[in-house]
């Protein structure tokens, strides 16, 4: 353990000047960013906007049990006021009036900025906030499931860049089997089984044959795309009955679904959204609170240490990769059993790679991965809404939003994240 040799004794002395200095640098950085956001809001959404227009925020749908009245705000004033507030928050950070929870303050500033942006975009119009949030959840679902799949593999030390291929295979198999069996449940199970199979395949390559894990993943991606396209042409296009899976329906959790706003948002959904929540909690609990998780993580961090205490490294890795495959397969079934009504060539369209980004951006943590998926999905959804409203930005640039946001967040806020130490390294049993 060479690194640890250089670790110093943590000084037990008074608050450390240097640590304070780096915290201050961070604080000022966030402060300046916040202040800039405020300034933009003030200028673009406040002063620069037409006066006399209202923006209506719609908070419930007609189908919802509890109706919440719409919120109407004057667009220009909202931009101005929120801009000032955000700028003030930035100033508080820069001047050091607020010294703690800098990230939280920045987050609040960012949220208020988005509200100002929405008010400006919806001036003289209305915008469905509930729809915005609902759409975010919808778009985040496959990303979160993909990221969870990656999480399971990488926490055990196997890099999984094959999420995309696993999603695609899951989608294909689910469409085929659900159509044949006449129930989406069969599709769900078979889609997961397809994922498990690809996971095992990755395992054979990465764990047993010690193929470079990136290569192994790339093989699966290419293979999956090629095979599903090929079979799509050869089979699904000919026998269209085989591409007609029924869809899962949304259902509500009795009681909870009647809550205002959060009821329809969180508690009335298809099984996938619930599964995302359950999996987030289960993965967190499983990885950080159980024996299974401790062992999986030890294998991903220091496989030799795990080996010396009698943990079967290879078997643990296999199991994790196959479990990851199952989750990715599950994510794949979302495409055909929830989102749409059938399989279509390359229908995952790169979501597996975005899930991979979410995993890294979420720092290999289930909650982080979920948040990352939500951030990406939110910016995608926001972009759609902005395209509908009166925004002078060309659609090509609006379509870039989620990608730009991801880069900015990863570069600006997250910075270096630390992967499991043995991620990507094959383990050789002596």
């Amino acid at each position, binding site marked *: 353990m060479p690194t640890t040799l250089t670790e110093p004794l943590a000084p037990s002395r008074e608050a450390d000047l240097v640590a304070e200095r780096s915290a201050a640098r961070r604080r000022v950085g966030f402060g300046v960013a916040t202040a800039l956001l405020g300034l933009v809001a003030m200028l673009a959404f406040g002063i620069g906007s037409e006066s006399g227009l209202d923006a209506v925020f719609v908070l419930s749908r007609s*189908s919802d049990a509890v109706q919440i009245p719409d919120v109407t705000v004057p667009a220009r004033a909202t931009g101005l006021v929120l801009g000032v507030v955000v700028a003030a928050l930035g100033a508080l950070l820069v001047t050091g009036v607020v010294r703690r929870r800098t990230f939280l303050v920045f987050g609040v500033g960012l949220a208020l900025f988005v509200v100002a942006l929405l008010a400006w975009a919806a001036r003289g119009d209305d915008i469905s906030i509930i729809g915005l949030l609902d759409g975010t959840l919808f778009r985040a679902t496959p990303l979160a499931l993909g990221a969870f799949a990656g999480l399971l593999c990488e926490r055990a030390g196997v890099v999984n860049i094959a999420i995309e291929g696993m999603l695609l295979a899951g989608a294909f198999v689910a469409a085929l089997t659900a159509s044949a069996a006449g129930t989406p449940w069969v599709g769900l199970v078979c889609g997961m089984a397809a994922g498990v199979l690809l996971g095992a395949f990755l395992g054979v390559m990465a764990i047993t044959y010690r193929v470079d894990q990136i290569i192994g993943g790339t093989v699966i991606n290419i293979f999956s795309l090629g095979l599903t396209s090929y079979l799509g042409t050869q089979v699904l296009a000919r026998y269209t009955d085989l591409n007609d899976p029924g*869809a899962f329906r949304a259902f509500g959790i009795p009681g909870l679904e009647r809550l205002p706003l959060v009821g329809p948002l969180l508690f009335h959904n298809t099984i996938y959204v619930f599964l995302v929540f359950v999996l987030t909690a289960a993965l967190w609990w499983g990885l950080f609170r159980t024996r299974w998780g401790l062992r999986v993580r030890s294998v991903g961090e220091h496989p030799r240490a795990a080996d010396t205490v009698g943990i079967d490294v290879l078997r643990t890795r296999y199991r994790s990769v196959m479990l990851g495959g199952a989750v990715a397969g599950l994510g794949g079934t979302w495409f055909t059993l929830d989102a*749409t009504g059938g399989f279509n060539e390359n229908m995952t369209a790169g979501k597996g790679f975005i899930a991979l980004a979410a995993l890294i951006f979420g720092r290999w943590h289930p909650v982080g991965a979920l948040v990352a998926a939500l951030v990406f999905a939110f910016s995608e959804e926001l972009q759609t809404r902005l*395209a509908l409203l009166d925004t002078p930005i060309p659609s090509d640039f609006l379509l870039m939003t989620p990608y730009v946001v991801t880069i900015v967040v990863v570069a600006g806020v997250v910075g270096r994240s630390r992967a499991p130490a043995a991620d990507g390294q094959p383990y050789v049993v002596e």
Partner: protein
Amino acid sequence: GDDDDDTEAGGGGGDGGGDFTACQVTDTGGVDDKSFNETAYKGVQDAGEELGFEPRVLESQSEADFAPNIQALMDQGCDLIVTVGFLLGDATADAAEQNPDQLFAIVDNDLFDAEAEEDRDYDNVAELVFATDEAAFLAGYVAAAMSETGVVGTYGGINIPTVNIFMKGFQLGVEQYNADNGTDVRLIGWDNAQNDGLFTGDFEDESKGRATTETLLDQGADVIMPVAGPVGLGSIAAIEASGSDAKLIWVDTDGCVSVPDACDLFLTSVMKNMDVAVYDVAIAAANGEFEGGTNLGTLENDGVGIAPFHEFEDQVPQEVKDRLEELRQQIIDGEIQTSPDEG
């Protein structure tokens, strides 16, 4: 081009007569693109059934495959080669120029010489293009008429002419309805003034089609026209999942034929009868009546049109149907402009 060579005898036009064959080269979307490649191929197949030949199709993986694929079909003695889309324009024009005896039909593209910056026509190429906006205009009118919320929506895959031509005509149709009736039905998702609107960014990700449609539903749209190939299938899922009674307007083909399961959602379809046009060209070629040059499908020649209302037949008021018939005639007579670019 680098394909001047060995088999220039190929031009199968001469010995045609008895065993006529028509073949197709797809663009990079492939033959099962649930869009124009597929529709055009249906025309080839229909002709094959009629004339008793086995149709051939070559899919292009990339633009580099266009010329070799065309060459391969010439080598195999295809009498008529159908190509699809503007991507294939130059390859088709080059091949036509070098093989004046070979017959071609290109779907959805008016050949254009980008270097000379002028239109190109060849006696051996039938350019099958469509005044889709004329039909979309009628669809916009009926959409506005049938909207209860006063909001209708549209979205596209990518903002390209073959896509936005639908949206342009659609908007003018909605405006026509408002002008006729003094109403204020709004179109969201496209704006002729900005020449821009709502797009998903590709023709593959159906889930984006679904999410986008949900956005439109949230913003109150209750008649929606997706112009995004297979991505449009996401709209069906969105409406089915939301349980709303919004309606869809399908494009290219009659939705009730191509997606029969969802027929109850289709108010109508903006039909671009590419299969019919291809079929007609093939039959004409087989009978020695092939005519090159631009061949514009319009309302007048039934190259474009709107589909029957199917399940909504009873719900569309008679006066709307009557007015649609009037409008159709006016468009044919050139009294109404259906494209914002003209005039």
